[in-house]
């Protein structure tokens, strides 16, 4: 069983690649993906406050090992797939979403699959907005896409002090390059202000998964996040 899976997976992936699977360059539309997600929402939650239901919540699914989310009881088949090295990436998720049982034969997920490649691409684009591991999200754009959020509109409406933002931004620039180059660490230049604020609050509240960002955002108050957003906005003009 296990062996069969191991041999099957690369073959499935090869077939997908040959067929022009989801590549970094043809990532779908997250907004359209939010609509596709309604098919999943009966069993899965994603976003702020998401918890395990019939299926596990899907925050941070990119880059995680199959069956690896603690506290959820997976099928044996899913657990052994993870132990054999199945990690959820754009490619593996695409294969799984097309025909779940072709990737994890005895998964309890009773879902026929999404036949249309664009539906899968859109859904993946949507799910990626709730995952933020640079290694698994090669291009920077998805991390810059806004997420579902329940932020107080007053927080979004805060006018930040760009001078303070410039000072605070110097901390970002130890890792993120101001010219927008991204290798290993995503670009944060030219973000929409609201997306920036939403993302920073998502790190602060530990919804977005990255220890450095959670730590750094964790000590920024609402005004400081607004100041950073204001500064990055001045860069755009």
């Amino acid at each position, binding site marked *: 069983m296990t062996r069969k899976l191991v041999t099957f997976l690369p073959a499935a992936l090869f077939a997908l690649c040959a067929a022009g699977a989801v590549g970094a360059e043809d990532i779908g539309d997250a907004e359209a993906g939010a609509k596709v997600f309604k098919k999943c929402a009966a069993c899965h939650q994603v976003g702020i406050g998401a918890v395990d239901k019939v299926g596990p919540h899907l925050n941070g699914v990119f*880059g995680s*090992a199959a069956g*690896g989310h603690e506290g959820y009881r997976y099928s044996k088949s899913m657990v052994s797939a993870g132990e054999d090295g199945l*990690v959820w990436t754009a490619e593996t998720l695409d294969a799984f979403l097309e025909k779940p049982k072709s990737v994890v034969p005895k998964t309890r997920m009773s879902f026929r699959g999404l036949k249309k490649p664009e539906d899968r691409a859109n859904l993946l684009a949507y799910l990626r907005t709730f995952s933020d*591991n*640079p*290694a*698994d999200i090669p291009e920077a754009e998805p991390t810059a896409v806004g997420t579902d959020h329940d932020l107080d509109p007053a927080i979004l409406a805060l006018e930040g002090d760009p*001078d*303070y933002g*410039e*000072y*605070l931004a*110097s*901390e970002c*620039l*130890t*890792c*993120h*390059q*101001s*010219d927008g*180059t*991204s*290798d*290993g*660490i995503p670009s944060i230049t030219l973000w929409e202000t609201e997306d920036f604020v939403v993302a920073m609050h998502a790190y602060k509240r530990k919804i977005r998964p990255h*220890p*450095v960002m*959670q*730590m*750094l955002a*964790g*000590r920024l*108050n609402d005004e400081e996040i607004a100041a950073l957003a204001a500064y990055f906005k001045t860069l755009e003009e």
Partner: protein
Amino acid sequence: MSINRRMFLGTSAAAAAVLAAPMVKADGHGKPRVVVVGGGAGGATAARYIAKDSKGEIDVTLIEPSRMYYTCFFSNLYLGGFKEIEDIGHSYGTLASGGVNVVHDWAIGVDRDAKTVALAGGGSVAYDKLILSPGIDFVEGAVEGWDLSAQNAMPHAYKAGSQSELLKAQLMAMPEGGTFAMVAPPNPYRCPPGPYERVSMVAHFLKNNNPTAKIIVADPKPKFSKMALFQEGWADNYDGMVDWIGSDFGGDKVSVDPNAMTVTIDGEVTKVDVCNVIPAMKAGRIAELAGVTDGNWAPVNAIDMSTKADPDVYVLGDASQQGDMPKSGYSANSQAKVCANAVRGALTGSKVFPAKFSNTCWSLIDTNNGVKVGATYEATDEKIAKVDGFISATGESAELRKATYEESEGWYTGITSDMFG
């Protein structure tokens, strides 16, 4: 929150006090002058930020003897074969284009009354604010049998560049099945995970080129940074190659003989082929010459990195004694930004914001096997105090370790761009 507010008020009051005092620049000369000594992660960053943000209002001079700066961070990756020496070398050309007056000379003395820095090449440079970021020097007599005259036979390779190249050459020339010894330093020292990342990188090189060779580490400490992560990594990747002897097992009772190439640990003499001696450290000598040190290091005020000895002299990075931050390039870069903001505020009246510090140290254990530790810090009346932190876990997935390594490469590009422009 309340701490932030209090600190904010505190700095505003300090800035107001500076404004109320006669402006320093009104003193016969033109623009206010900042002199920075040492062009590493602290000094280069401070010089660049003050020049950039003051938009020509402040004259910034950087005194740095080397024309090429080799970063200590990632120099272990050079030993392991993951980087070339050119990959970790940086020139000062972009800083000069960015408005910093770069002087390649040694600072050999500071007259704090006259406010001048004397240069080895003759003459002196006047300052209104002096920022010292000289890194480390070694404590004399720290390892019995070793002094600087022995650094060719037994390199420290703890200032990157020619010493790194020497240690690499010795590593490559090791006989089959030979022994690589390291004498690790006592706390506090530059880059807490550094010696252990180096052990990992040496082991990586030996595994591929000289698999029967051995590594022994004599350590004056009972434990070290990221210990569980490194020991797991050594067991998983270099089984049986690394023998770490901590102070509980006599690792603190060590002497070396650079002529005989022997290391004596707790009375037991071992003939070795390479011996990397990393002695106890102290602030770079210019800090001592400036009279701002107390013991081995220069005590500073957490709020702006000014020294306890002189409000117009600041010390950044490894040389400073500031509290909870580790001595790292990332820390020095973080401290430099706080200092640059405060110095600019004091000289031109620009807004001074509350000090925020952070640090992350990435280490490479084996190919695509990176780990990290980090923390955030704030300024209190007593010291730079830790707020929050994290560390990689043992047993992490290969994917996460690979992502961490790739992140460290991104960080390297980021911080060197931030330092040099």
